[in-house]
Every structure is written in structure tokens, then in C-alpha cells.
């Protein structure tokens, strides 16, 4: 076990015992991924209506309140924190979108209850918003809608695996734990999803090469 791991475990133990400053350091270590999580899972319809920073603050506060209930035996800390974030996002979505969402699609919702098609939107943003070489805005918009259409044809779980690994930046082991399957199976699912995404991207005008920065 390296010294970083020992340090972070010690900080977590101190935080669980009520030490606020250790808690700050614990959260800081997970800040980047937590930030990505909120960015990824906050429903697009709430953009401009609520501040992601406020959601984040609520998550941090809720996690601090629930921290005494955390035990490392039950699950790795980040996955626990992710669960707290998921519940808070669900609450935020209910509060702001509430009654609009009571339909059958609810069953397919991912973490935090964002709309089910959001994984395609996310993947489009991951791939195309960064492609600075895409010369004209119009061309990019056309690519976006084509890519979105193709991604909708993909299996929802395949899209989810890509979001977990690349948007939320979960490790292979964390991804498997979140999906509730064995790591080997999660790995195969992921590799298959990358392969499918590759063939989708290759069918876009210009293929994969055109998407490189």
C-alpha cells in the first residue's frame, strides 16, 4: 500500500470522527470527479435554472451529515459519495422537474434521475464539442445530430458504460461495482461499446480522423 493511500485513509478516518478539516482534504481529493459527475448527471432542462455549484454544495453537506454512517467494509468511499450525489440529484430533479417526469421512461433513468436519452447527449458533447478542427459551426451541428441519431441506436447500457468510464472517469473496478457485475464482464461490455462507438464514428463524414483535434 503506498503512502498516498495510507494518507487518504487516515484523513477519511479523522473525517468520520468529525474532523472538518480532514473532511475538506478528503473532498478535495475527489473534487474533480464529483464535479464531472454533477456536470454529467444534472438534467439538461435545468441548465440556466439552477446553479451546479449549489447542487455540489448540497451534496457535500449531505455527505458530511451522512458520513458517520459510512463504513469502508460496505463499499469504496468514492462509490459511497457517488451514491449520496445520486440521491441528491434525484431530489433536485424531483423538486424542479417533479410531475413532468412521471412516465414509463422513468424506469430507464440512470443515476440521479436525469432523462434517459441524456447519455447520448453527453457522449455527443464529449466527442464533438472538443473537436476544434471542425471548421464550420454548421458542419458541426450536422455532425452532432447525425452522431446523436446513431448513438440512440446503441444499447443504453453500452452508452452508460462509456459515460461511467469516460465522463465520470470511474476505474474498471468501480464501473463493475456500479453496474453490479463482475469486472471481467464489465470490461468486455466496455470494450464492445468502444468498438461500436468506433464504427459509428467511422461512418460519419471524414471518419474518425476528422474528429481529432
Amino acid at each position, binding site marked *: 500500500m503506498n503512502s498516498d493511500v495510507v494518507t487518504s485513509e487516515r484523513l477519511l478516518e479523522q473525517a468520520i470522527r468529525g474532523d472538518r478539516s480532514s473532511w*475538506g*482534504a478528503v473532498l478535495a481529493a475527489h473534487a*474533480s470527479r464529483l*464535479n*464531472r459527475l454533477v456536470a454529467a448527471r444534472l438534467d439538461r432542462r435545468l441548465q440556466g435554472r439552477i446553479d451546479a455549484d449549489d447542487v455540489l454544495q448540497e451534496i*457535500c453537506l449531505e455527505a458530511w451529515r451522512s458520513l458517520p454512517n459510512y463504513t469502508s467494509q460496505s463499499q469504496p468511499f468514492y462509490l459511497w459519495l457517488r451514491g449520496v450525489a445520486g440521491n441528491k440529484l434525484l431530489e433536485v430533479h424531483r423538486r424542479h422537474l417533479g410531475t413532468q417526469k412521471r412516465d414509463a421512461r422513468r424506469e430507464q433513468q440512470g443515476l440521479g434521475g436525469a432523462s434517459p436519452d441524456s447519455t447520448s447527449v453527453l457522449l455527443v458533447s464529449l*466527442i464533438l464539442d472538443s473537436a476544434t478542427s471542425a471548421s464550420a459551426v454548421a458542419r458541426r451541428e450536422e455532425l452532432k445530430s447525425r452522431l446523436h441519431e446513431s448513438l440512440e441506436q446503441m444499447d443504453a447500457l453500452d452508452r452508460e458504460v462509456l459515460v461511467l468510464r*469516460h465522463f465520470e472517469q470511474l476505474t474498471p473496478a468501480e464501473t463493475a461495482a456500479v453496474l453490479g457485475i463482475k469486472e471481467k464482464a464489465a470490461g*468486455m461490455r466496455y470494450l464492445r461499446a468502444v468498438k461500436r462507438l*468506433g464504427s459509428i464514428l467511422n461512418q460519419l463524414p471524414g471518419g474518425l480522423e476528422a474528429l481529432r483535434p
Partner: protein
Amino acid sequence: MTDSPLLDELAHEFVERLRRGEQPPIEAYSACHPALADEINELFPVLRVIEQHAQTGPGATSPPMAPGPSDRSIRLAVAINALPEDERQVVKLFHLQGESAASIAEALGRRPSEVAGLLRRGLKQLREHTSDEAVG
């Protein structure tokens, strides 16, 4: 897939290197693992496209269209949240609401030197908590 655990492991390592801002050559991976070369050559360029915006700097990980908070602001929010109650109050009044140390002292019924001490300690902690990731 022939050896998916190894391929997954290599893919994960490749992606982590991209996130650190490296440009790992795909050919090196396929040369070291000839049995997986076809799959590496097929999959890794896709990973590079997916991760390309991460290369613009881990500090700027928030994708442009997402309504996400910036990394800097989350670090700050988290760090402020972690301060002891009185330090938090003073730091917030001073920095976020632009109150002067004298008016904070007056409002809280404390001596100006106490407020200055709280501010100094609070800021020191904020600097410590926000600097560890700032380099990455």
C-alpha cells in the same frame, strides 16, 4: 475479444496517460502486445477521440455544454465548506460579500484582531486545500 482483462487494463492505462496530458503512441502498445495488436489499433484511436478534450488540461475538465461547476470553484466550495464555523463565516463575509475586516468585527461583536486571525487561518487552510490539485 481474446484477452479482454488485459486489453481493458491497457485501455485504462492509455486513457489515464491521455488525461495526464501525455501522447502515448498507439504503435508502442500494439508492438508490445502483438496478440492484441488488431484490437489495440481499432480501439485506441477511438479512446483518443473520446478523451481529446481531457487533454486540454485536467483543470478544464468541464465540457463546454455541460452546466457544471468549474474544478476551481468546486475545490473552493469544498474547502470553504470544510472550515470551522467561525472561520467560514469570516471568510465568506470578507471574500464573497466584500465586507471589510472592521465591519465584520463590528457585526460579529469581535475584536478586529480576532477577525484578522480567523481570516488568516481560514485563508491558509483554503490555500492548502485548493493547491494540491491545482498543479494536475
